[in-house]
């Protein structure tokens, strides 16, 4: 078994709690953003960025994609990229 495939250390419970606190705060911020008129011009990119941040935190830490071997990352990211391309093409063609 090479280094890549060796046992990978998962985050500890403190890290999990910290991530949960961030996820809760970001969800609250997302909700609050809609009620601040000054943010209207940037609300779409802001919400998408916050959502992407939550996505990365859950996948990276809770699904252990960050500490786990890179093969898992590729098995997930390739179809995810393909799904994103399908979405963009469908929206480009149909909207």
């Amino acid at each position, binding site marked *: 078994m090479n280094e890549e495939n060796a046992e990978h250390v998962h985050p500890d419970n403190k890290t999990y709690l910290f991530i949960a606190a961030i996820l809760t705060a970001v969800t609250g911020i997302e*909700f609050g953003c809609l009620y601040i008129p000054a943010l209207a011009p940037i609300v779409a990119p802001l*919400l998408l960025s916050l*959502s992407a941040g*939550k996505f990365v935190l859950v996948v990276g830490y809770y699904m252990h994609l960050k500490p786990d071997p890179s093969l898992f990352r590729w098995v*997930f990211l390739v*179809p995810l990229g393909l799904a994103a391309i399908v979405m963009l093409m*469908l929206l480009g063609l149909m909207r």
Partner: protein
Amino acid sequence: MSNTAAAHYTSTGLDTRKIAFWTFIGSECLLFGTLISTYLVYEGRSVVGPTTQEILNLPLTTISTFVLLMSSLAMVLALAAVTSGDRKYSIVWLATTALLGLVFLGFQVVEFTEFVHEGLTISTNLFGSTFFTLTGCHGLHVAVGVIWLTTLTILAFRDKLGPEKAMNVEICGLYWHFVDVVWIVIFTVVYLLQRGGIR
């Protein structure tokens, strides 16, 4: 490494069940990507009936989103407890995760019931068709996860879920967290962006 554990490993040194499950999750990305695209393509094209901005209940959905995020926390704590051989907390956290999943489903039932009372069904208009298909498909995934978690809780209760079975819990966790990340996307695309009037 025991014979039982060795049977699940390949020349890559990785657990075959985990590779298979990540592949399944990859295919699920395509499924939900297509459903979300379909929703977005038809969004705002309904000729009759209640539309997105008239009917979506954002505060309620924000609370249900919080519930699902907290269920993910309970899931990782369950995995940590199973891995360390802590039977009591394995049961507690697995049951908590299943319970929070049930609460999320309860919120969805309330939302769907409200919509039907407002006159929006799956056959009312394009919004109804795409919305119920997308969120219903996600809800079905949550329901499968709740059944899976309940099974694991029963196994833990019977003392049949020791550290040697931690991979079973990790795979269930992968499924549960994936359901969570799909909801993160749906919450943003269907609820937040539409409520903000962004198309």
